[in-house]
């Protein structure tokens, strides 16, 4: 091998504390190095041209650049050596900026350390092999998991882009949390008026297949070729026959069940269509409360159904969908307010969540849009809003800000005044977080035009007394204790990862944080990608988001899918594991541990062997450290390469 070494000054960033000329000179003593120089900005156009020229002039077959972190410019230099005719993997970097020049001021030590880092890069390069990607075909269908506003947007954009879309929704209707909202901030326009048409578009779009009341059961395959098993839960109603007329709901004798769509502050029937604008508008029987199931006799709905759609013997059904990409848009759930015992949520009926309050405000809610408190149905005059319940609270293990609560609280304060002109709202807050277009103006309106009294401080406790809820807290601006006699207390419950999110993440083989939110590939530059190729994120499943952000992410995820599907063939990253079939004893330890199911057992001349599925392997190398005989090696990070680095460092 003929190795060229380039030591970058990075202006004064490196040269300031590293003697690059000395490092270059020292490099010449290392094996197979035929050329070494220092260079002002290796990544600049002249810098890259210098590398390309040297490759040609000196017949270099491998290049080491010592400069910044490879996480920054490795792709840049790989492209450069490729332009000069080398394989892009015949290249290594030594990080002498972030790991050397920027963290120490001792020029002698830094120079010396840089030589060491160049040396291990050379030793690794000497054991590099040219790698080339392979190509495979893709299935241009996409699955969107979750039919909230983010999922709806992603599905519509993909469908409009000409893709076949499979939309999977856990509930019997799409719409998600947004469908439960009365109005939206900061425009105070009606939530169902702006969401409804989009839901109808989903129903009518010829490219969209909707599986409502369904969940993802299992996922196999890899980017371009996933197989997803979808469990269609039994609805006990044949949806091909159901017309959504609602006759069954009128006659159902079991009427007092907590209505999940109404956040359990209103009753519903055992056979139910959750709300008038539901898509699909089909009935579902809840077998845990239905008399036919619980008592074994009733059958009223079956008698009244004009189309004979009721099927008490229906069972769950699994359908398999083949898709090439998956968008996860599973949204969020609310923090359980009963965990904050001092506020009495769950114990006192008049302490409710913001989402429950939305249902009280909504004209299609259980009170027909009249604010009536749950305990006695009276119209409240004093309403206290408490923010950050389950947000920004380390003691509850919820240190993060849920982001949208400040805004919906301001909206609810405004709506309270609209509904009950002689009412007074109080808002206990920690800080007001309203960084969005027209957002801060909106919270100001709540205070200035609608007279909501904002009190900066935490509430210590809420307790009932003589038909009122006494809210005691601190006013940290006035430095006093305050007590408010409230008729109704609304807790701005924080957002949590959706129930079951970690399980879905494991099926998708994507990471999730300790709170269950899915991990994006890069917090700034890859916000809707994941570390599993072909799986994208939209909306609050990645972290709490308001509607505009969720919609934006839905479109962003769709754009990623459309870009992925713009090619007919995909290239796989060649930095993957490969099996030396002679050394493999077929024990399958790599198969057990592979996080991506990227290794399969094959028969080779009657013997069991492991084989890497190139398109699935993500290149983590867990298999390589698992295999005792070293039969499976991660290309570009082989045992021999790491051993060579170790040996280079341990030579005295």
């Amino acid at each position, binding site marked *: 091998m003929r190795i060229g070494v380039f030591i970058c000054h990075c202006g004064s960033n490196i040269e300031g504390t590293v003697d690059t000329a000395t490092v270059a000179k020292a490099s010449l003593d290392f094996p197979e190095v035929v050329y070494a120089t220092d260079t002002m900005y290796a990544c600049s156009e002249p810098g890259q041209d210098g590398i390309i020229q040297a490759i040609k002039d000196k017949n270099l077959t491998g290049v080491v650049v010592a400069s910044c972190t490879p996480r920054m410019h490795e792709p840049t230099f790989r492209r450069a050596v490729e332009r000069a005719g080398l394989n892009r993997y015949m290249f290594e970097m030594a990080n002498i900026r972030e790991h050397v020049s920027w*963290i*120490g001021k001792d020029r002698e030590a830094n120079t*010396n350390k840089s030589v060491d880092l160049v040396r291990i890069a050379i030793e690794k390069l000497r054991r590099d092999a040219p790698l080339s990607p392979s190509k495979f075909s893709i299935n241009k269908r996409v699955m969107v998991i979750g039919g909230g506003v983010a999922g709806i947007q992603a599905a519509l954009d993909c469908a409009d882009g000409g893709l076949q879309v499979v939309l999977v929704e856990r509930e019997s209707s799409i719409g998600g949390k947004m469908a439960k909202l009365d109005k939206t901030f900061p425009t105070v326009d009606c939530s169902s008026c702006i969401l409804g048409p989009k839901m109808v578009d989903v129903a009518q779009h010829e490219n969209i297949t909707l599986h409502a009341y369904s969940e993802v059961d299992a996922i196999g395959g890899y980017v371009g070729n996933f197989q997803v098993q979808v469990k269609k839960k039994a609805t006990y109603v044949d949806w091909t026959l159901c017309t959504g007329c609602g006759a069954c709901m009128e006659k159902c004798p079991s009427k007092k069940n907590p209505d999940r769509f109404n956040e359990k502050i209103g009753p519903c029937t055992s056979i139910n269509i959750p709300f008038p604008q539901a898509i699909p508008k089909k009935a579902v029987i809840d077998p845990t409360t239905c008399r036919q199931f619980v008592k074994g006799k009733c059958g009223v709905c079956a008698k009244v159904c004009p189309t004979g759609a009721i099927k008490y013997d229906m069972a769950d059904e699994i359908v398999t969908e083949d898709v090439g990409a998956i968008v996860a848009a599973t949204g969020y759930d609310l923090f359980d307010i009963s965990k904050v015992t001092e506020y009495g949520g769950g114990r006192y009926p008049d302490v409710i969540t913001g989402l429950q309050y939305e249902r009280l405000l909504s004209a299609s809610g259980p009170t027909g849009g009249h604010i009536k408190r749950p305990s006695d149905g009276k119209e409240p005059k004093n309403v206290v809003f408490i923010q950050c319940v389950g947000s920004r609270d380390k003691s509850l293990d919820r240190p993060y800000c849920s982001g949208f609560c400040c805004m919906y609280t301001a909206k609810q304060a405004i709506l309270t005044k609209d509904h009950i002109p002689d009412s007074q709202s109080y808002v206990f807050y920690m800080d007001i977080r309203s960084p969005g277009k027209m957002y801060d103006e909106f919270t100001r309106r709540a205070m200035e035009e609608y007279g909501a009294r904002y009190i900066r401080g935490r509430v210590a406790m809420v307790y009932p007394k003589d038909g009122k809820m006494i809210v005691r807290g601190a006013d940290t601006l006035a430095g006093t204790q305050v007590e408010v006699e409230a008729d109704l207390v609304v807790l701005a419950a924080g957002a949590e990862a959706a129930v079951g999110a970690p399980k879905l993440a494991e099926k998708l083989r994507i990471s999730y944080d300790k709170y269950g939110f899915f991990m994006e590939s890069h917090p700034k530059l890859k916000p809707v990608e994941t570390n599993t190729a072909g799986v994208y994120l939209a909306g609050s499943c990645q972290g709490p988001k308001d509607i505009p952000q969720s919609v934006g992410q839905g479109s962003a995820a769709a754009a990623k899918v459309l870009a992925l599907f713009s090619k007919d063939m995909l290239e796989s990253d060649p*930095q993957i594991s490969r099996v030396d079939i002679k050394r493999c004893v077929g024990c399958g330890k790599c198969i057990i541990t592979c996080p991506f199911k990227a290794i399969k057992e094959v028969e080779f001349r009657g013997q069991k062997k492991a084989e890497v599925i190139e398109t699935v392997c993500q290149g*983590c190398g867990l298999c*390589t*450290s698992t295999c005792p005989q070293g039969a499976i090696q991660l290309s570009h990070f082989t045992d021999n390469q790491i051993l060579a680095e170790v040996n280079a*460092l341990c030579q005295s």
Partner: protein
Amino acid sequence: MPVLTGKELRIVGFLCNWCSYGGADTAGVGRFGQPTDLRIIRVPCSGRIDPLFIAKTLINGADGVLVSGCHPRDCHYAEGNFYARRRLEVLKRFLPILGIDPGRFDYTWVSASEGQRWQKVVTVFTEQIHALGPAPRFDAVSADMLAKAAAGALGQGGNRVAA
């Protein structure tokens, strides 16, 4: 000129590319000053780190080895660090029976955003290795000790009194 004699000790780091290597980058970007002893070997995932690499590094004369990966649950590859945690803990407990001070090896978790944590880890670990001093070398055991080993006279407390 591998280490600056009298100033540095030989400390080798194995860092996963996605979290800890990025954390070390973040520390650099933030100019969080650190001792210069550590040399970092980049690997894709802490799960790639065969404990034998660490044993080999220490047996071959390194004074310290530091491994760092993504925090549990944050692994770029979903599970690699969970396997690594088990394997590295087993190794840490194994080293002393070979005659290697377990303080010469540590593993930890540092995310790409935790530049300050990385600075602290490197500083504390380097101090820890300097406190232990240069590692006794397997190929430089004293004749006196070898004679004791041959006579089956180790572990009688004699050496520890002398030390």
